[in-house]
């Protein structure tokens, strides 16, 4: 696919120079990298809030082209920007915020209100909203201006895990219903996998890697950035729902059958990514019976890595050759007498698996 958003900008920052050259396809591009890598500065440069030089074009139309003396002010770029803390105007109601940038465009305002289902909130003041509601309003406010490009700066970072999972579906809805090119800054691997079709990894103001998220997420550059605890990421698709049993069955690309807690909102066939923390994986030296965990797999121990106080076990599962990481204490390794090459059985509770 040809590039929809072309970025080639330079901006001096206190510690280094931001120097980003990237071509983004249609859809969502996740931008990841350590704090202070220049991710927010990049978004601000694209939005026109920083005096960057170079070139930014959306759909071939330049917003910035220093060489040709083009530098549209932010109000003429039609770029929607949603910061981490939502940045709602405290002196206006929710409706006042949503209408702020599109006073005459009722159609866009109504569509944005409907997409994010914030109609019951319209008379409220931003200070009275929950974090998740604020982010939905901020998204609606940006959408109501009919932007050509959406910039999201860690839109879920200020929310706790429970709230994150409740706001994420709205983001997916915006992505699917508004078909906007979107740049999504995040620290969270799960979010990047869930929303993005393209990934840019930044370090010290430069692009360190760019490409298909699933291919890049295995890269060592990103391993360090992976959200602590989500060591096992397995792409797959929903097979069926068991309402009575309260579980949803998922088959991974490696051919592993996994039961997760009921997630009826995703019809069979929906692609999903399973996220399992290594410390949530139980390890046994014999076949697992009489245990409540719904998922048990036989496999072989490949390697034992000391990681800080704990030990990480790398295991190959017999089914489909999938790999899984488990984290246990050195005491457990000793008492189980684990040796590389030996047989292991791994068990995971349905509740310990997050569906992305």
């Amino acid at each position, binding site marked *: 696919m040809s590039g929809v958003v072309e970025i080639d900008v330079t901006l001096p920052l206190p510690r280094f120079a931001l120097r980003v050259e990237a071509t983004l396809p249609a859809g969502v591009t996740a931008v990841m990298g350590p704090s202070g890598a220049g991710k927010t500065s990049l978004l*601000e440069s694209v939005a026109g*809030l920083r005096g960057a030089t170079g070139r930014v074009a959306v759909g071939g139309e330049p917003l910035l082209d220093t060489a040709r003396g083009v530098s549209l002010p932010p109000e003429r770029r039609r770029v929607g*920007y949603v910061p981490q803390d939502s940045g709602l105007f405290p*002196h206006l109601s929710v409706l006042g915020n949503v209408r702020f940038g599109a006073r005459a465009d009722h159609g866009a305002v109504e569509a944005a209100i409907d997409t994010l289902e914030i109609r019951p909130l319209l008379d409220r*003041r931003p*200070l*009275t909203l929950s974090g998740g509601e604020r982010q939905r309003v901020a998204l609606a406010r940006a959408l109501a201006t009919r932007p050509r490009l959406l910039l999201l700066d860690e839109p879920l970072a200020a929310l706790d895990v429970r709230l994150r999972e409740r706001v994420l579906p709205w983001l997916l809805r915006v992505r699917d219903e508004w078909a906007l090119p979107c740049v999504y800054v995040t620290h969270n691997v799960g979010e990047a996998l869930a929303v993005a079709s393209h990934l840019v990894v930044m370090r010290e103001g430069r692009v360190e890697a760019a490409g298909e998220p699933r291919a890049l997420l295995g890269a060592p550059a990103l391993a360090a950035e992976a959200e602590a605890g989500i060591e096992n990421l397995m792409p797959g698709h929903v097979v069926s729902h068991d309402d009575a049993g309260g579980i949803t069955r998922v088959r991974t690309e490696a051919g592993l059958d996994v039961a997760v807690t009921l997630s009826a909102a995703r019809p069979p066939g929906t692609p999903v990514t399973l996220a399992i923390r290594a410390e949530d994986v139980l390890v046994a030296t014999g076949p697992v019976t009489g245990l409540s965990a719904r998922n048990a797999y036989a496999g072989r121990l490949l390697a034992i890595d000391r990681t800080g106080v704990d030990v990480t076990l790398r295991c190959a599962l017999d089914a489909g050759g999938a790999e899984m990481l488990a984290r246990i204490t050195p005491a457990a390794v000793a008492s189980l007498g684990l040796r590389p090459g030996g047989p292991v059985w791994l068990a995971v509770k349905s509740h310990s698996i997050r569906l992305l």
Partner: protein
Amino acid sequence: MGAGDLQVVAFTLQMAATATAAILVPGVAAAFFLAGYRGPGRGALETILSLPLVLPPTAVGLALLELLGRNRPVGAWLAAHGVEVVFTWKAVVLATAVMSFPLLVRSARTAFEEVDPRLVGLARTLGCGPAAAFFRVTMPLAWRGVLAGTVLAFSRALGEFGATIMVAGNIPGRTQTLALAIFHETQLGRDERAAGLAAVTVALAFAALWLTEWLVRRRSRTEGA
């Protein structure tokens, strides 16, 4: 209170209101500029603008006199165009305006500095030009401080004495404000009349400050959480 006293009160209010109105736009503009300015000379600029706060008002009055006296360049030019400033009500307005200006600027500048610049940036991405962003975001968020500064400037104008007496003199019925009248009556030994006028100034200043408090409280209740 006699007719003469009423005239003095009305004249003082008129002068203070005119002076405050005259400095409102330039004062808010200067405050907004200073709040965002990070270039060279910022410190010097702030110091110069604050100078009337710490100088003896008589020194400021003397400087104005030097500028506007009939045989000084500016004064002579104005006189040639038929504008007489010194020892007229215009001198009262000018002196009180100069003395009140820094109070307005300081208070408004603090208010502008407290407005999150990212909100202004967001307003820009939502289609506002710089002027629209100022009136739709910056001003609505800073208005309390601007109003407080305006009332402070008005109250200061009500009581201005030193600079006024230098450039406007103390002419009953023409340039005499409350502060000047109190001084005048005391000089003449009419302490009771002076005390009466002093009580009026207390009442006026109290009313102005209380009104502001009330406005700000009322607004923050409707706006707040």
